[in-house]
């Protein structure tokens, strides 16, 4: 019984917060301001609890599995949700249904936690649905905006379709191996054609959720339509959790099929990086721009993933930690500006440096980190991903990845040029930053600068994987 509480502590804390919010909603209700501060405090507690009572073990007959690495991954996700609640507080204070928003967001987070520690295809499927259905409802949270409902419609239809494909793949794998447990499947795999077919269906579903290129079409529309808080959640937390479970699925469950998925990842990585970069160049809306840039980042994650060894796991987890900080900083700046002025186009950012130097520096830092320029942590993240890819890959593949980093510089620097150098007759006015937003931006900036410089963080992740 004691083991139950220590192993499932993250899930239990989240569930407790969800119930507390439900009771607040049913009862008297609270003013948005005080409720938001309460939720921020609870999320901080949730993040801190993640560091204590770490144990490794199984529950429910191998259905649930946890280890230090999985706890670390959960901590990254908790930190991301805490930062979102800080960065988007301007928008959150104005929404009519604040408790519902957090109930949906935390249910999705609970689903992601269960998904990362799942040890069985059944619990994996259930938690994947728990992680996607609430997000579709969240995407529709600007109820009166046409674009929000259109984005939500695209999200629910494509995610339902992709889970249908996932299920078909799972059913084929069940038919061949006769088991659903992650531990028992690898022993049954011998690389027959039907197994590869089932595996391809499974990977296609993962590619949908991770927006790898031939399956990425929903991404930009959903990102543009949803409120910025939801976009940030989708691009960082959702992506991160799917990447974690994808790596488990490939390295543990489908380890005997490494030859098959190695080539698959190489091809996916190349087209994802190229298409993501080329489409990002022509975007005008900052949210769409960040959507395509996040697609390109997924391409880089795949480069690291293709290594198939522990170096790959370390590099991907380390990169996602950095990506959380840098992408959330960029979204935080976009959220503040969109909420106070309603402007979302890159051209509107011209002359931002004259009026809002602080925001501008944070934006520059975030974009430099996403592009991978040395003093920021993004450089080290990319470096380790490409090193991990180089342990296995042919050098053409690595050269293509490096060339894509150069292409990505062009469009990241375009935004920075607009903000710092371009002249504008009527730039965005002085923007008032609340304490919460400021705190969130400073945490992100500190993360971007420090994670790369402290080598023990990488060593720590390396010791876990």
């Amino acid at each position: 019984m004691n083991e139950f509480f220590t192993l499932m502590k993250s899930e239990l804390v989240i569930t407790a917060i969800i119930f507390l919010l439900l009771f607040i909603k049913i009862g008297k209700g609270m003013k948005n301001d005080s409720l938001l501060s309460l939720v921020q405090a609870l999320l901080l507690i949730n993040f801190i609890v993640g560091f204590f009572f770490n144990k490794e073990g199984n529950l429910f007959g191998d259905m649930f599995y946890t280890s230090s690495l999985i706890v670390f991954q959960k901590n990254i996700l908790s930190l991301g949700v805490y930062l979102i609640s800080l960065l988007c507080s301007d928008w959150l204070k104005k929404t009519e249904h604040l408790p519902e928003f957090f109930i949906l967001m935390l249910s999705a987070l609970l689903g992601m936690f269960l998904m990362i520690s799942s040890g069985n295809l059944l619990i994996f499927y259930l938690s994947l649905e728990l992680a996607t259905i609430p997000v579709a409802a969240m995407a529709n949270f600007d109820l009166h905006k046409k674009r929000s409902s259109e984005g939500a419609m695209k999200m629910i239809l494509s995610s339902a379709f992709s889970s249908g494909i996932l299920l078909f793949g799972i059913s084929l794998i069940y038919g061949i191996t006769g088991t659903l447990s992650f531990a028992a499947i690898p022993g049954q795999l011998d690389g027959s054609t039907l197994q590869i077919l089932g595996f391809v269906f499974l990977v296609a579903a993962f590619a949908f959720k991770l927006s790898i290129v031939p399956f990425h079409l929903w991404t930009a529309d959903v990102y543009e339509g949803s409120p910025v808080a939801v976009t940030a959640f989708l691009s960082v937390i959702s992506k991160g959790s799917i990447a974690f479970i994808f790596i488990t699925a490939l390295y543990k469950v489908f380890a005997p099929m490494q030859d098959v998925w190695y080539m698959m990842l190489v091809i996916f990585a190349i087209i994802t990086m190229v298409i993501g970069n080329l489409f990002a160049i022509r975007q005008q809306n900052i949210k769409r721009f960040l959507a395509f840039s996040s697609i390109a980042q997924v391409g880089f994650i795949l480069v690291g993933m293709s290594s198939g060894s522990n170096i790959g796991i370390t590099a991907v987890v380390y990169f996602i930690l950095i990506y959380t900080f840098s992408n959330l900083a960029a979204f935080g700046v976009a959220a503040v500006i969109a909420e106070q002025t309603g402007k979302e186009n890159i051209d509107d950012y011209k002359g931002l440096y004259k009026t809002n130097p602080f925001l501008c520096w944070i934006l520059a830092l975030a974009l430099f980190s996403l592009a991978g320029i040395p003093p920021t942590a993004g450089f080290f993240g990319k470096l380790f991903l490409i090193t991990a890819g180089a342990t296995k890959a042919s050098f053409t593949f690595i050269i293509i990845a490096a060339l894509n980093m150069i292409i990505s510089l062009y469009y990241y620097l375009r935004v920075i040029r607009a903000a710092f150098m371009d002249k504008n007759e009527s730039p965005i006015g002085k923007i008032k930053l609340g304490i919460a937003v400021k705190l969130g931006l400073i945490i992100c900036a500190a993360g971007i600068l420090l994670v790369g410089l402290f080598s023990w963080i990488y060593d720590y992740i390396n010791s876990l994987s």
Partner: protein
Amino acid sequence: MEPGLYHILFLSTALFFIGVYGFLTRRNLITMLMSIELILNSVNLNFIAFNKYLWPNQMDGLFFSLFIIAIAAAEAAVAIAIIINLYRSHNSIDVENAEDLKY
């Protein structure tokens, strides 16, 4: 002749691809949702057939299909709520009319 595993697999695979075809060609949101239900039902058939013919000792497949039915209901509920909201703003449930977001 007794129907065997192959007959059921043929049926379920045909159902799956009919669902995919319907999802890709139909333009009415409710019909697209129905196509997804077809896909999920074909998967249910698959699980039950595999369980009965190949692995009759455990009940894994049977329970999986029960969970799929429950999840499909939840998914349809959220999807229909979103479609109703879309109808309020667009006055139509045709995907061709929801085209503000492009490229």
